[in-house]
């Protein structure tokens, strides 16, 4: 195989592609779209994240400013957590707009994450969101297909294919050359995007780049490069396989429609049909039912709390709860919180498992559909996928639990165990204790965690790449020059 020949063919492809007015217009349009998407996407990211940061600070400030109170009042006052966006999420919105933003964390109760962007939308959002990722995933492949459908078939139609072979060009050289040429045209779009992304991202992180984010970006860009190579290979192979350009174009367009328009919705619908998930009201009813089985702290004759009381009395070596040196109500609440959080977590885990099963079809379909492979990988790397959202929910639940138990502990330790009359001022503790609860700070997971979640997507991309490369060198025997 001669690299010189491959290079020559690539160069020729590049020149003819850029000479064509249609390509130039399409490239230009996509370029402008990319630029606009980057700019607006970045602005959007900034406003939203600034808002969330602002209100987050306000929540902390108000928490610390609360006066002396009964700790259980603070447990009900609770905390508000806002989901921060990952610094790379301006690149890919992922599930961002469909996932809630704010969650109220209080004692006894797990709330939903509310105010997703899509809940303010009248349906326009269902047409897709303009982001760099969307253009790269959806539109660039189409451009590649438009560039590539003629690559071999036109040579065949013009009869130049024979001439090329007479000049000593091998099939593999021709195919590789065409692919390299088309890839390089698509990189005309891609490379500026890379540069702008790196620049914006560096700006967002105040020029203090973490290794984790840098690694994420490198993987992201490699992923997209691989995706474009896969698309280019597909285009050239289809073009080589088909006798006419028209046939090649039709096949490529149909592939694009199946990959991007039909398959993702179809696989996800299949998942949701096969693994139905409960609605909130059913979910809560199930938890409530189990909770009343496990023990009801409101019920004085409940067997669980009866036993609990006995154990406490034994532990503190007293005869009745009124003789306790610690606050008995606090102990009961801590026990109640422990039980209810545990039951909730079991149900929540089951729900999450159902969701993961629902998503598994779309994930597995990455092996049939490179678009889904890059889509999942890209969302994960930009911190905008379901796993990341789930991680946010887990971290907030942990914080909620710690908050409630911290306040229970304060009550147990510092609130008198003596019952009050209805005219007594309620017991309070110093507001100094409030600062003992650290602020909620969402920690993004590291890239290793992300990649472990996305093994499927990475492997799927590799498989596609290897498969097409093998095809490239084996198919040549079956191709016709006429």
């Amino acid at each position, binding site marked *: 195989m001669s690299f010189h020949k491959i290079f020559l063919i690539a160069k020729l492809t590049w020149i003819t592609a850029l000479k064509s007015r249609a390509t130039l217009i399409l490239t230009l349009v996509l370029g402008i*779209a990319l630029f606009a998407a980057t700019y607006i996407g970045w602005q*959007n990211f900034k406003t*939203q994240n600034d*808002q969330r940061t602002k*209100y987050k600070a306000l*929540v902390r400030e*108000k928490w610390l400013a*609360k006066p002396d109170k009964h700790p259980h009042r603070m447990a009900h*006052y*609770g905390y*508000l957590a*806002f989901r921060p966006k990952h610094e790379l999420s301006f690149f890919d919105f*992922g*599930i961002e707009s*469909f996932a809630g*933003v704010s969650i*109220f964390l209080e004692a006894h109760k797990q709330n*939903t*994450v*509310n*105010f997703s962007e*899509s*809940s*303010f*939308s*009248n*349906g*326009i*959002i269902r*047409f*897709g*969101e*303009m982001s760099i990722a969307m253009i790269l995933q959806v*539109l660039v492949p189409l451009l590649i297909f*438009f560039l590539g459908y003629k690559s071999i078939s036109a040579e065949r139609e013009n009869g130049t294919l024979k001439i090329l072979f007479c000049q000593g060009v091998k099939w593999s050289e021709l195919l590789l050359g065409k692919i390299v040429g088309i890839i390089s045209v698509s990189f005309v779009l891609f490379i500026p995007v890379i540069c702008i992304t790196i620049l914006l991202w560096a700006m967002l992180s105040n020029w203090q780049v973490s290794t984790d984010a840098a690694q994420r970006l490198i993987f992201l860009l490699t992923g997209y490069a691989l995706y474009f190579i896969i698309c280019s290979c597909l285009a050239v192979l289809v073009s080589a396989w088909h006798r006419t350009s028209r046939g090649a*174009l*039709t096949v490529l*367009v149909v592939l694009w429609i199946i990959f991007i*328009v*039909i398959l*993702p*919705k*179809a696989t*996800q*619908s299949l998942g*949701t*049909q096969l693994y139905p998930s*409960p*609605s*909130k*009201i*059913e979910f809560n009813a199930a938890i409530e039912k189990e909770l009343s089985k496990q023990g009801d702290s*409101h019920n004085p004759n409940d067997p669980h709390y009866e036993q609990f009381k006995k154990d406490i009395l034994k532990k503190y070596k007293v005869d009745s709860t009124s003789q306790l040196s610690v606050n008995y109500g606090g102990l009961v609440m801590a026990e109640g919180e422990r039980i209810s959080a545990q039951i909730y977590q079991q149900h929540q885990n089951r729900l999450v498992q159902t969701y993961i099963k*629902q*998503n598994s079809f*779309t994930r597995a379909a990455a092996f049939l559909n490179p678009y889904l492979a890059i889509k999942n990988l890209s969302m994960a790397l930009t911190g905008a*996928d*379901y796993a990341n*959202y789930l991680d946010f929910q887990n971290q907030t639940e942990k914080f909620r639990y710690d908050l409630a138990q911290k306040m229970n502990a304060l009550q147990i330790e510092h609130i008198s165990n003596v019952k009050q009359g*209805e005219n007594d001022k309620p017991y309070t503790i110093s507001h100094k204790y409030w600062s003992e609860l650290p602020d909620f700070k969402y920690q993004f997971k590291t890239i290793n965690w992300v990649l472990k979640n996305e093994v499927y997507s990475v492997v799927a991309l590799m498989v596609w790449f290897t498969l097409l490369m093998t095809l490239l060198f084996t198919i040549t025997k079956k191709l016709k020059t006429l």
Partner: protein
Amino acid sequence: MYLLAFKIFLRNKATYWSIALLLVTGIASIHIGKKFVEKQTHMIEKTAQIQKDHIKKHVGFFNKEMGLLMYYLRFSVVNQPPMLSAIAIGQRDINPAVTGVTIRNLNEQIYDTDLNNPSSLLLGNLDLNFVFIYLFPLIIIVFCYNIVSEEREKGIWGLTKIQSKSVMQVIWMQFSIRMLVIYGVAILLIAFAAIYLPLPVNKPLVASIILLFAYLLFWFAIAFLIVSFGKTSNYNTITLLTVWITLNIIGPAFLNLWVTNKYNMPEALETVIHQREGYHEKWDIEKQVTMNKFYAHYPQFKAYVLPKKEFSWLWYYAMQQMGDDDAQQSADQMLQKTIKREQFTQRASLFMPSLYAQLQLNEFAQSDLNNHLHYLQSVKKYHEKLRLDFYPLIFGEKPVNSINWNAFEMKRFTETSSIGLTQTVLPLLLYTFLFGILGLFFMKKTLFKL
């Protein structure tokens, strides 16, 4: 001749596959829609039972104080999806169909979402609406991209031309064959939906069908326009697909980004903060301050004065009320902004037929944002009614068994908006007309001379 052309068209493998694709996805989508509505209906019926049990259990348990009981009692308002929403799921998967509220601070409860898998929301539902808005135009493109151009590429255009009275007739014949097939499939799918779901024959259904037909016609007009340029099949394919992408992906996606940026919603987070502070800070301030504010809001309850106890339910519910009163402004702003957003998108959609058709169909099927906003308003109203009914009972310390609890059944919200049929299809017909005329104009310039 017509029959012959029809046979030739049908014998094409691409035609076969296309029709099969439409039918398979169409039928699957109707099934998916049916399942969706069934699931929601089932959930709603369950809610009715859960509410009954819930009230019975709590009334039995907290039977001493009306105030304490009402802290717990939850009343549900449901937004029953009409059968038509099975073919246009719209925003119904995002917005909750069941909202349960206690008479406490409403702003803390009303924005709670249902449990959702965000990945499914992102990829969206494969409903019949999607098949019509996305796939039908693509198949129209597949059917029409080679009209005239293929005959030319095969070198038989001249032959075809002299065999018929006029060029116009040839082209019209080609288009009418394709329209026959497309509309045939469309009618088949709608008929299937009407029987399988089943759909009641009413104004929204008729409006949806007329709108869908107009939408398909619009795409034929676009195909006609592109064909009239008299270019190659490849040119037609690429151009038509580009138009499709612009109308179905890029245009709406940019509009969405624009709208999100222009009307971003800090008011949402503000409302949460205000309602929480508005209530909780009242624990730490002079009781009478809260009471004065409460009496200003509800002068009719002035007769109930604070008892000389540290805690009273009158004070408690007055504090809860303050959560709503303090968040009122930002909640109103949030609502206003959402309405503005909706109106802006509606206006902008006049320039994007696909978006326009989608939004209209959602409206007919009551699965649009407006329906949800109306529903939220009805929850608000019901919540206020509950408050006005129960406040005197709580403040007057009436015994729990003094009222008939069986009367408190789950409440159903019903949409009362009307449909204006002519103004709905008018924009689509206008575009169709415009492209048709333009197509004729170009055809005179190009095709007749070929």
